[in-house]
């Protein structure tokens, strides 16, 4: 037997400055875990909050530096086959998404950290392990226990979300999906009030999320069987090179991988978890999830659609078009009958996911930039909206039923006014970021989508009109109705939450009136590296 010389071990080329943002976020999460272990309870909350916000700000600065180090990294080029085996693709869309996630993460954490004068975060239970309703639960709250583990968990989630649009292969995408999802499953179950609902939401999210990850992995295996490689570049090239006999693998694999990703954004028919999880999870976590998970997942969908499976788009395009139509319609129609504020916003987020999918289906650079703009505009608005929802209370618990919001315009005009403005932004009224975002997405779809694109946009316009009714009804309740009773109160938020809500609202207004700078940035950041 001829002796084959052992292949020399090839070390990966790592551009540390390009991955520095990710390393900072993950490192800060690890530091947060150590803080949990060693820091006495009184100082834990403040220290965790400081570490989280500071690390995210630092990560944002690192992202600015990383823009000069774009390219594929964390791998090497195989000498024999000259295949580029890199794990991460640091390019425009990836960095844009990372920046957006970091900034939205800061706002989300500020709202999560709201204490309302108490000992620990008001939204999170004192003892996550105690049975709801047991004396241990009450004793833990009295003893001043806190669940400050939420901060490192959130940082892990943000790290996973930053990673999700940046990976260059399917396995990395799967790992990023799990890294971002696991902390969210845990965070959803830690509400302070209505704990049974929260734990149910967490379990539902976990089970359905695990199923969708399994679908994703199944699809990955099939695509690997098709292309012989998990890297997106190889997958894209394989479509033209591979024989037609293996086509079944491509179709099934693409379909299953998309199922996994569409689950994360709440597209129909994979949306069943969204209303229950949004309603059961602690409200700051819901805001964080609605903004950041959607951004990360759409970044991943963009990469899969435009880099991995772009050459095979005619295989899966029609299925995704049907999904987009169903998502818009179901999200709009089902939000009409909702009576709970959090569920209403959940169904509206499903409708918005449908609109963004319309932008994804415009296979053009304009599609990418419009999606990037939309997730940023929507993310800041929804974080501010959920931040406002945390403030309205009745009998110590959150007042999320719509009837409890009646007459808020008279008693608390600033809160109601801000909420009304955010509702108008979701409805897509001009001079708000929601309108510019919808316009961008619709323009991209009509521009390059042809007749299908125009039909999608018409359906989108009709669904927008339906959602206007929903948001207008909230405004009617707040401003044109009498208050149901006097016991509904609005808590005064601390500096952090006020800052977060104010920034979210300001950005909603600014992006509606002078959106050109962000549009320009999104345009310049819409080129993928292969």
């Amino acid at each position, binding site marked *: *037997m001829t002796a*084959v*010389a*052992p*292949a020399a*071990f*090839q*070390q*990966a080329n790592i551009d540390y400055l390009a991955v520095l943002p990710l390393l900072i976020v*993950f490192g800060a*999460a*690890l530091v947060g*875990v150590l803080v*949990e272990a060693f820091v006495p309870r009184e100082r834990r909350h403040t220290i965790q909050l400081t570490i989280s916000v500071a690390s995210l700000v630092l990560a944002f600065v690192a992202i600015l530096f990383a823009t000069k180090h774009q390219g594929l990294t*964390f*791998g*090497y080029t195989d000498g024999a086959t000259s295949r580029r*085996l890199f*794990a*991460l693709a640091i390019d425009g869309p990836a960095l844009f998404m990372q920046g957006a996630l970091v900034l939205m993460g800061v706002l989300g954490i500020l709202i999560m950290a709201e204490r309302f004068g108490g000992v620990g975060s008001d939204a999170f239970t004192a*003892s*996550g*392990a*105690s049975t709801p309703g047991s004396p*241990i639960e009450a*004793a*833990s709250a009295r*003893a001043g*226990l806190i*669940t400050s*583990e939420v901060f*490192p*968990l959130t940082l*892990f989630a943000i*790290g*996973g979300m930053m*990673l999700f649009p940046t990976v260059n292969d399917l*396995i*990395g995408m799967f*790992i*990023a999906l*799990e*890294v971002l999802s*696991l*902390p969210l*499953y*845990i965070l959803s*179950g*830690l509400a302070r009030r209505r704990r049974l609902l929260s734990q149910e939401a967490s379990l539902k999210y976990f089970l359905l999320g695990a199923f969708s990850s399994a679908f994703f992995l199944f699809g990955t295996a*099939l695509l690997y069987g098709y292309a*012989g490689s998990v890297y997106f570049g190889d997958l894209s090239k394989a479509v033209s090179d591979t*024989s037609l*006999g*293996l*086509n*079944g*693998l491509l*179709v*099934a694999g693409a379909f299953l991988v998309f199922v996994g990703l569409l689950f994360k954004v709440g597209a129909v028919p994979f949306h069943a978890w969204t209303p229950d999880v949004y309603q059961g999870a602690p409200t700051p976590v819901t805001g964080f999830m609605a903004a950041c998970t959607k951004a990360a997942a759409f970044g991943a969908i963009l990469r899969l659609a435009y880099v991995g499976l772009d050459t095979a788009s005619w295989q899966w395009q029609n299925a995704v078009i049907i999904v987009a139509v169903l998502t818009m319609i179901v999200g709009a129609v089902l939000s009409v009958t909702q009576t709970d504020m959090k569920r209403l916003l959940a169904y509206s987020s499903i409708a918005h996911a449908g609109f963004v999918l319309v932008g994804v289906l415009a296979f053009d650079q304009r599609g990418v930039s419009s999606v990037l703009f939309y997730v940023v505009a929507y993310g800041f608005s929804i974080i501010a909206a959920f931040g406002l929802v945390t403030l309205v209370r009745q009998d110590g618990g959150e007042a999320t039923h719509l009837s409890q919001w009646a007459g808020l315009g008279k008693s608390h005009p600033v809160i109601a006014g801000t909420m009304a403005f955010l509702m108008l932004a979701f409805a897509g009224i001009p001079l708000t970021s929601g309108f510019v975002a919808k316009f961008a997405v619709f323009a991209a779809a009509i521009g390059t989508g042809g007749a299908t694109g125009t039909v999608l946009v018409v359906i989108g316009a009709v669904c927008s009109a339906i959602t206007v009714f929903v948001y207008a009804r909230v405004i009617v309740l707040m401003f044109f109705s009498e208050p149901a009773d006097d016991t509904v109160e609005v808590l005064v938020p601390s500096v952090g939450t006020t800052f977060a809500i104010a920034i979210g609202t300001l950005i909603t207004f600014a992006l509606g009136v002078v959106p050109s700078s962000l549009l320009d940035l999104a345009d310049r950041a819409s080129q993928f590296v292969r």
Partner: protein
Amino acid sequence: MTSTAEAVAFWILGPLAVLGALGLIFARKAVHAALGMALTMVTLGVFYLIEKADFLGVIQIFVYTGAVMMIFLFVIMLVGVDSSDSLLETIKGQRWWSFIFVIGLAGLLIFTLGQVTFDAKTVQAGMDRLVANNNATGNVTGIAEKIFGQYVWAFEVTSALLITAALGAMVLAHRERIVPKRTQAEWAARRVKENQDVAGLPAPGVYARHNAVDTPALLPDGRPAAKSVSRVLVARDQVARTDGYRDVERYIEREIEEGRQK
């Protein structure tokens, strides 16, 4: 392409793996389900070994069938072997609809994947590459080169998953002790002060043929003493009945009576 030995092994073990998976889903007792899963994992390990992925096959058996399945069995032991979930279906018609959708999805997948034809040469080339790698560097070294070279980022990020899982387990399952644990001296002092069960709770019953913790002791009038068994067992309705054990007693008593009367 596929050697005869490999084909035979696959067609015997494959259905076994499917049976194990079906057992996992449909078994009534938790332990049976766990064993079904173990069967599937072992057969998968065997498949990997057949495909010349030595390290993966052995690790599959060590880690999955060994460590993971043992953890499953530990959990079943802690939760209770007899415990089962309520199988009452609250959503109307969900069974039928899910059945229809599953059949639909399975049919779609089978139809799509069934049409796939593999090119014999490419498959063989891939196999040869693996064998060559095994011969050259050994299977373990080959995997090590991939993990620490090409896939080092994925490997390192997986650590975030493990840390999150550990942190989540702590948050969701670990109860911090708020009040210090009562020592035995404190229990005794409390009993004396309240004048209740000063001598301690009664011990479970001891009978000729049974003396486990699930049999209650008998009060002077013959009724079972509720305090002599753990209230967890009472709540789970797992307290044994004492009638059977007392039959022997009554039989002996009757014999003594008869003997005395003779």
